[in-house]
C-alpha cells in the first residue's frame, strides 16, 4: 500500500474566538480527484486555506508527499508541488494574461526556464482563448476566461497536486460545464486534485472520492460511486438541491463568502421539535409545484 500524496490528520483552525475546523481528517492518493463537499460554513474554504498555508492551523498535521508541511509557509508549499486555483479565481487584474502566467511559473522559471516555457505553451494549447488574449489585462477577461487563466496559472508551475476552490462560483452554467471538462482533462493527465465545490451535482461528476464536511468535521469519506444519493442528501441536508429545475436554477447562484460561523443542521433540527413535519410537507409541495 502506497503512502497517500496528501494526508490530513486532526486539523483544527479558526478565526479569533471561533474555531471552524474541529479535527479534519482525510487523505488523497496520487492521481485521485478528491471532492470536499459541505454546506455553507461547514469549513470547506477554511480547509483549503489551511492546506494552502494562508490560514494558520491550530492543531493537527498535514503531510504532503511524505513531508510534514504543517509549519511551512504558503510559498514553500507551492515549491513542494502544490498548485492553487483559489476561490474567486484571484487573477492579477492589472497584469496581462502572459504576465499572470509568468508569475504562475515564478518558481519553475528560477530553476528551469526552458521547462517553464514549454509548460506555458502547453497552457496556451489547452486554452486557446488565453493565447489569443495573451497581452490583454486579466481584469478585462470574462469570468470563464479568468477561470481558465487561474487553472493555467496553477499548471505552469508543474504541480503534483492542484487545489481547486469553488471553480463554478459566479459562472454561467455553460461556462461551468466547459470548465469542468477542462478540469477533468487536467486530472486525467495525471495531476492529483482536491476540489471544493458548492454545486454538488457538478462536483460529483468530477470527483473520484467524496469527503463530506459538516461543522468542521469530515463525516463521510468514500468512493463517489458508492455514494447513495439519499445518503448524500442526508449528510448534506440538501436533498432538495439535487436534480430538477430548482437545483439547476441554483447552479448559477453566487458562492457565499466564507463564513467563520458554525452551522449545524443536527442542532437546528433537534431544536425545532414537533412542528417540523408540516413544514417539510410544505417543502415537498413547493418542490412539486416548481415542476420537477
Amino acid at each position, binding site marked *: 500500500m502506497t503512502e497517500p500524496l496528501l494526508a490530513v490528520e486532526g486539523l483544527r483552525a479558526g478565526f479569533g474566538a471561533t474555531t471552524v475546523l474541529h479535527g479534519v481528517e482525510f487523505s488523497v492518493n496520487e492521481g485521485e480527484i478528491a471532492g470536499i463537499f459541505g454546506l455553507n460554513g461547514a469549513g470547506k474554504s477554511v480547509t483549503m486555506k489551511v492546506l494552502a498555508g494562508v490560514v494558520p492551523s491550530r492543531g493537527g498535521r498535514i503531510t504532503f508527499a511524505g513531508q510534514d508541511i504543517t509549519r511551512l509557509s504558503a510559498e514553500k508549499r507551492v515549491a513542494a508541488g502544490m498548485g492553487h486555483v483559489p476561490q474567486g479565481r484571484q487573477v492579477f487584474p*492589472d497584469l496581462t494574461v502572459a504576465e499572470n502566467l*509568468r508569475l504562475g511559473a515564478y518558481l519553475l522559471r528560477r530553476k528551469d526556464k526552458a521547462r517553464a516555457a514549454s509548460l506555458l505553451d502547453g497552457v496556451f494549447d489547452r486554452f486557446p482563448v488565453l493565447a489569443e488574449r495573451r497581452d490583454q489585462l486579466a481584469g478585462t477577461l470574462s469570468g470563464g476566461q479568468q477561470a481558465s487563466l487561474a487553472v493555467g496559472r496553477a499548471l505552469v508551475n508543474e504541480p503534483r497536486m492542484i487545489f481547486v476552490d469553488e471553480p463554478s462560483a459566479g459562472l454561467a452554467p455553460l461556462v461551468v460545464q466547459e470548465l469542468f471538462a477542462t478540469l477533468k482533462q487536467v486530472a486525467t493527465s495525471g495531476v492529483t486534485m482536491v476540489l471544493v465545490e458548492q454545486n454538488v451535482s457538478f462536483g460529483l461528476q468530477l470527483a473520484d472520492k467524496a469527503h463530506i464536511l459538516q461543522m468542521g468535521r469530515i463525516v463521510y469519506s468514500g468512493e463517489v460511486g458508492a455514494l447513495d444519493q439519499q445518503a448524500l442528501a442526508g449528510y448534506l441536508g440538501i436533498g432538495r438541491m439535487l436534480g430538477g429545475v430548482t437545483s439547476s436554477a441554483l447552479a448559477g447562484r453566487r458562492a457565499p463568502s466564507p463564513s467563520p460561523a458554525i452551522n449545524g443542521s443536527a442542532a437546528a433540527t433537534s431544536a425545532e421539535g414537533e412542528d417540523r413535519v408540516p413544514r417539510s410537507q410544505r417543502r415537498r409541495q413547493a418542490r412539486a409545484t416548481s415542476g420537477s
Partner: protein
Amino acid sequence: MGQVLVLGLVYGVIYSLFAVGIVLVYRGSGTINFAQGEIGTFGLFVAWWFTTAHHLPWIIGAVAALVMAAALGAGFEWAIVSHMVEANRVSVAVATIGLLAFLVAFEVRFFEGGNIRKMVAPIRGTGWSVFGVVVSPTQILSLLAAGALAAGLALLLKKTDFGLGVLAAAQDPVAVRLVGIPLARVSAFVWGLGAAVSVLGALFIEPTIGVFTPGFASEMFIKGLAAAVVGGLTSLEGAFVGGLLIGFVEVGANRVFDFPGVKMFSILFVMLLVLLVKPDGLMEGFKFRRRALA
C-alpha cells in the same frame, strides 16, 4: 516665469523622489510610511560618516547610505509591519510614526545632537544659468536620476519576475503567495526600496540646502506626501507629476502672494482641491503599467 519653472522643476523632482518612495510603500502595504523623510536624513548621516568623516568618495557614502536605508526599511517591515497583516492600515502608519520618532531620537543621541553637517556634492562645480537661476550639476544629476529611476522602476517592475510579483502583490497579496512568491520578501523589498529612494532624494537636495541636521527632510517629506496624494498615492507617474506640480505651486505661490506660511498654505490648498475634486488623484486612469508597455 522662467525662474518659477526652473525652481519648480528643481525642487519638484526632489519631492517626486520622496513621493515615489511613499507610493512604493503604499502599493506594497497600503499604508503611508511617515518615517520616509527621516530615513532620508538618516541616510545623510551615514553618507556623511563615510565621506566627510572618513574622506571616502561620495559614491561610497551614497551607496552605504542606500544600503543602510534599504536594510532599515526592510528591517522595519520584518520587525513590525509583517506582524500587522490583519491590522488597520492607519495603525501601520502609526507604527511608522514610531520609527520617525525613533530615528530622530537616535540621530540626536548618537550623532552628537543637532550638530549641523555638510555633505559633499556628488559633482563639484557651479553649474549653468537657466533663466537667471544657476542650476547645479547635482540638480541636473537629480533630474537625470529621477528619470533613470522612473525607467529603472518600470523595467524592474515589468521585466523581472520579482518585479511583476511586486505589482501583483499590490493587487492581490494572497494570490501572490498561492503562486509561490514569497510575499514577505516582496513586502520587505518594497519597504527597503522606498527607503532607499528617500535617501536618494535627501542626497540630492542636501547640496542645494547646504547643511543638514536631524529632521532635515521632514518638511520635504510633507511636500513629497502632498505630491504622492495629488498623484493618487498608487501611481508612480502620479508621484512624478505630483512632485513637479507641488514644486511649481510652491514656487509660484511664493512669487504671487506674500503672506506668512504661503508655501504650506498653497500646498494644502492644492492637495485639498485635488482630493475633493478628483479623489483618486490626477493620474487616475493612466496607470503606470500602460505607459511602461507603450
